[in-house]
């Protein structure tokens, strides 16, 4: 190959691939809106809040960003909105050891941001993030769950609380909760958290049936 032919290979070959890339870009732009829910003004306002406070400077979203704090793609699925709102406006008031500083996010901004996070959780991401392999098989054929454990699972408590090292870190670790709190306290707290702690960001689980609540309390108080 001569230098001249290498040069032409470079110029025209690159142009060729760039044209293909442009075509795929055009096609992607046409298809993206079908893969996401419609965007309202509130969602757009939420996206602007995301940019304004440079959230990506610590978090990732759709897996892209700063890896210093959790990914925000599915956060709305795991955490109650009321918790998120309180947390966004003043993180340490709901979680004393939170790393996130108080940024000065207003109530209105927090609402928009939550609307935006809800939108992003519904984007068709080709199955990302994948469901953890082990967590999704636990309980399958190993041993039967108690009634209380079933309530714990169905209410998504694990999204915020850790038991034996597994679970979310938004709320307190419940591994030994049975040592610290008695059944009565647990019962009252789950039904209405602010009755025991006015600052609590945990939603009230007053939708639980009396029986379910008792089963859950039974399970939690057995954790010692």
């Amino acid at each position, binding site marked *: 190959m001569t230098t001249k032919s290498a040069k032409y290979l470079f110029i025209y070959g690159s142009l060729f691939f760039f044209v293909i890339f442009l075509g795929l870009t055009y096609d992607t732009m046409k*298809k993206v809106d079908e*893969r996401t829910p419609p965007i309202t003004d509130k969602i757009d306002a939420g996206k602007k809040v995301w*940019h304004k406070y*440079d959230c990506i400077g610590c978090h990732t979203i*759709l897996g892209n960003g*700063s890896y*210093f704090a959790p990914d925000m793609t599915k956060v709305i699925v795991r955490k109650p909105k009321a918790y998120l709102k309180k947390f966004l406006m003043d993180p340490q008031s709901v979680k004393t050891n939170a790393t996130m500083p108080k940024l000065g996010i207003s109530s209105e901004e927090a609402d928009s941001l939550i609307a935006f996070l809800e939108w992003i959780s519904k*984007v068709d*991401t080709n199955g990302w993030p994948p*469901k953890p392999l082990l967590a999704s098989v636990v309980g399958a054929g190993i041993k039967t769950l108690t009634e209380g454990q079933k309530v714990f699972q169905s209410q998504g408590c694990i999204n915020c609380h850790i038991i034996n090292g597994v679970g979310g870190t938004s709320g307190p670790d419940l591994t030994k909760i049975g040592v610290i709190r008695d059944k009565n306290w647990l019962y009252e707290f789950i039904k209405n958290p602010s009755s025991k702690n006015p600052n609590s960001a945990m939603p009230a689980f007053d939708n639980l049936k009396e029986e379910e609540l008792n089963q859950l309390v039974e399970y939690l108080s057995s954790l010692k």
Partner: protein
Amino acid sequence: MVAKYEGQKIALYFYTFAVLLFIVQVIVGIIAAGQFLYPDFFFLNFNTIRTLHINSMVVWLLCGLMGATYYVVTDESQTELWNVGLAKFQFWATVVTVLLVVLGYIWMGIVPSANKEVFGTLLLNEGREYIEAPRWADLLIAVSAIIFLINCFMTVQKTKHWTGIQGTLIGGLTFLVLMYVPGMFYTKSMVKDQFWWWWVIHLWVEGAWEVIAGALLAYMLIKTVGAKREVVEKWMYIEVALVLFTGILGTGHHYYWIGTPSYWLWIGGIFSALEPVPLLLMVWDAFRTTREHREVANRAGLFFSVSHALLNFLGAGLWGVFHTLPQVNKWTHGTQITTSHGHLAFYGAYVLLVLAMIYVTLPAIRGVKEFNYSRAIQSFWWMTISMVLIVLTITGAGMVQTYMERIIGLDYVAVKAEYNYWFWIWRIIFGFGFLVGVLIFAYDFFTLGKERETATIIETSKA
């Protein structure tokens, strides 16, 4: 080799600014690493520190490349720069813009809500990774880049001596400037936002910048070992061609999980798996050319050039291809694995490239034929060993994170705080090692060629 033209000396302005920012980048990098353990120990939060870490890097590398280009264009064209005054203006305008942007970041770091919307864009920080600079700064940077391109283009036009190296270099730089544009408009959809954002980021670092690297590697091989232009340029064309053939569609590896159609899994997977090929070719090219020529004109320059080629392949190529296939990336995407790749890739591909260009051109600018290169080698080993260890700790952290979080299902915060604790500690220690290397390099940069002058002056005064 002595620099004949004023235009070549302009490089020194850019190099100096680049070296100062390099020191800043590494210091804030160590602070950022410290914040993984103690988030509150510094008056600025992690997001501001990280923005400074990454932005100072992008700016100093670009300044280094611009300085090097002013030098190469005047040297290759064998004529004075088209407008030396304009180049100096462009330099100072760039410095002022960069300082204003940095002040804005710090202001926002102290008062986050100060980042208000003005004329439809955010005043201090766009809140988009890597391209945080606000729109007004984007426009000023674009003007500066266009002035720079015009100056280089007109210089070559003076003698119309378009060598392959100049053409590829200016072509790569034009591509770089054009690819800044997709980052300059707002989209309501975060999916489209990230789609266009990757046009900028990916087509810069795995497109335009690698083309520039290919051209500069060819130039350095000619200058350091006197390689034949005909042969070097032919291989350069093949390398940069393969860079773009694989790199353009390789952008697809960023479109796996962001809401874009699933055909990108195939396109991204296939083309990005081929991305290391041209980088390997560059390594082979560097070694082959060096072996064929026994006469070495500039040992430090050659050492850094060959190391650049090798670590470019390791960092950008190998550390990238590890996790580029969708089947692997599904589990590693958004973890510290990406950070480890980012660190080794930028160090190998671009930090060493700019440092190599400084060692190849600085002696001529300062008017020395020979210089003691022991400090250059010393700084290289301090930096390289430290960086490899930093990358290994982050890779380890990423593997633990992938396993604990993605496979077992533990919480992000728990993994970061408990399981990766020691990785963060080691990273800080190696960070200081890297800083030692940078300071040795900076000392060498500011004194190279001057020590001899002092000696001469002393002798003259004695006489």
